């Protein structure tokens, strides 16, 4: 039996992740139960004021709007990413199409958001065109509402969904689809019943890669949102940088953590049951 080197190999990882991840998270957990210091920061006194403050109607409203924005953006992303990735996986020019997706993926997301501001802004390209064509006589405000936030979010995180979906669909055995059709299934039915359950792991990754950055977003609502599209990330930042209410920032952060974890687990649970069904059908067949 050889010596166990596991602890030696993982020692740097253990130390790093403990000091710079676990301890800081433990600290915000602790801070959320402390009293706010008048100078910003905390006093070492137990208090649940930061949790009572969560029941502020404004925070509740923002929480719901955050959930709404995240779900809508994720739905749009999956709706666009699935057929796009399917097309790529079936194409003869896979490598080239892959490159076409990787370029926006690696292009800084702030630059890509900025491009939409140039297009949709009050003095942007779209308004210029509409004015020149005489379709409108005043500049229309396209930006700064909830839907621009949803659309720009979808645009920003779309490549993060296409790439994992592509690598899963690529591994799928497409002759199964033809077999289903030979057995009398319609094309739609074959895709829904055969392809979709088989690429569920890819869909899960795609949803995780998009839902999590959207729900904790700060920059998009800040840049293209209005008063109806403030998200939890904006409130946390405001509490930490401006009002310096650290206990409240900590308690809201924990709410955000819980919300995103529930979202993730709910989704994993839903997709797992689908894949389980598929496995059962297969086992029955054998």
């Amino acid at each position, binding site marked *: 039996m050889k010596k*166990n*080197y*596991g*602890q030696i*190999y*993982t020692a740097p*990882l*253990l130390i790093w*992740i*403990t000091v*710079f*991840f676990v*301890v*800081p*998270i433990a*600290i*915000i957990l602790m801070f959320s139960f402390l009293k706010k210091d008048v100078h910003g920061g905390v006093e070492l006194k137990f208090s649940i004021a930061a949790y009572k403050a969560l029941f502020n109607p404004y925070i509740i409203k923002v929480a719901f709007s955050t959930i709404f924005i995240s779900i809508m953006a994720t739905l749009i992303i999956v709706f666009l*990413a699935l*057929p*796009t990735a399917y*097309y790529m996986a*079936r194409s003869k020019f896979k490598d080239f*199409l*892959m*490159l*076409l997706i*990787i*370029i*926006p993926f*690696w292009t*800084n*997301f*702030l*630059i890509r958001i*900025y*491009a939409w*501001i*140039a*297009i949709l802004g009050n*003095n*942007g*390209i779209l308004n210029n065109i509409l004015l020149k064509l005489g379709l409108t006589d005043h500049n229309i405000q396209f930006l700064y509402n909830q839907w621009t936030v949803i659309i720009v979010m979808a645009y920003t995180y*779309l490549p993060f969904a296409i*790439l994992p979906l592509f*690598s899963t669909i690529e591994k799928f055995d*497409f002759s199964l689809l*033809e077999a289903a059709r030979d057995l*009398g299934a319609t*094309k739609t039915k074959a895709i829904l019943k055969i392809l979709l359950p088989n690429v569920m792991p890819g869909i899960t*990754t795609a949803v995780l890669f998009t839902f999590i*950055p959207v729900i*904790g*977003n700060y*920059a998009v609502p*800040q840049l293209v949102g209005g008063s109806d599209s403030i998200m939890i990330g904006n409130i946390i930042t405001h509490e*930490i940088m401006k009002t310096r209410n650290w206990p409240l920032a*900590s308690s809201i*952060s924990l709410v955000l953590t819980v919300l*995103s*974890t529930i979202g993730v687990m709910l989704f994993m649970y839903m997709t797992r049951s689908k894949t389980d069904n598929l496995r059962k059908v297969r086992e029955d067949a054998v």
Partner: protein
Amino acid sequence: MRKHNPKAFKRNTVSLYFFIVTMVIFYLPLIILIVLSFNATKGISWDGFSLRWYNELFFKSSKLWTAFGNTMLIALLAATISTVIGTLGGIGLYWFKFRMKKYIEIASYLPLILPEIIIGISLLIFFSGIKFKLGLITILIAHITFCLPYVLFIVMARLAEFDYSIIEAAHDLGARERDTLLKIIIPVALPGVASGFLMAFTLSLDDFLITFFVSGKGSSTLPLEIYNMIRFGVSPVVNALSVILIVGSLALGLLSKKFYKYMFS
């Protein structure tokens, strides 16, 4: 019996439309930025070709270039350190059983499913608590922290393809652990390690949110500078900068194509 075209699945008309829509959504804004970067005036309407904004970007934007230098330095260091720690950790977690293993796995998996802002805020509060001055060092520490899980999982995906009996054979033939690590494991895991490095490098280059919290006065990175410039509307220098960054992404894209297999599986 119903008739159907056996090539029906080969034509993919519907998915082609979706693909085209996606491409237009992706590239139309980028093309507009490229065109605008050569515009002679500040506005949106075309007033003739000019390299004015590039001139301003290259010769009159020293703040941007300092930030660019910081970004590259941090990305290189963060990618290197997280690749070393993550690769060693991946090897340890993949092949050994030991105390605390479950804890390490959960603690390294968690940052992947937590919104970035939580990591940013917890580190900001942590650094303030221990009175550590915010600056390039804190940015570097934060970047290593959020890159580590990605490197770890990319390396482990590569190790999953690895035939463990090779290592046993090496041990049976009398190889020491250090020799197996340097002469067998690292060479075999190299594509995974390189993918991990590249992923960490690009994540660090691009990061805005975590950096936003842990940066201090005078320690700006390129994404922070871009954010400050676009907050106040359209700036032609940003157009020129965008073109440079898009070209950079193209180069990175070509480079990373080989490695994507381990990045997204």
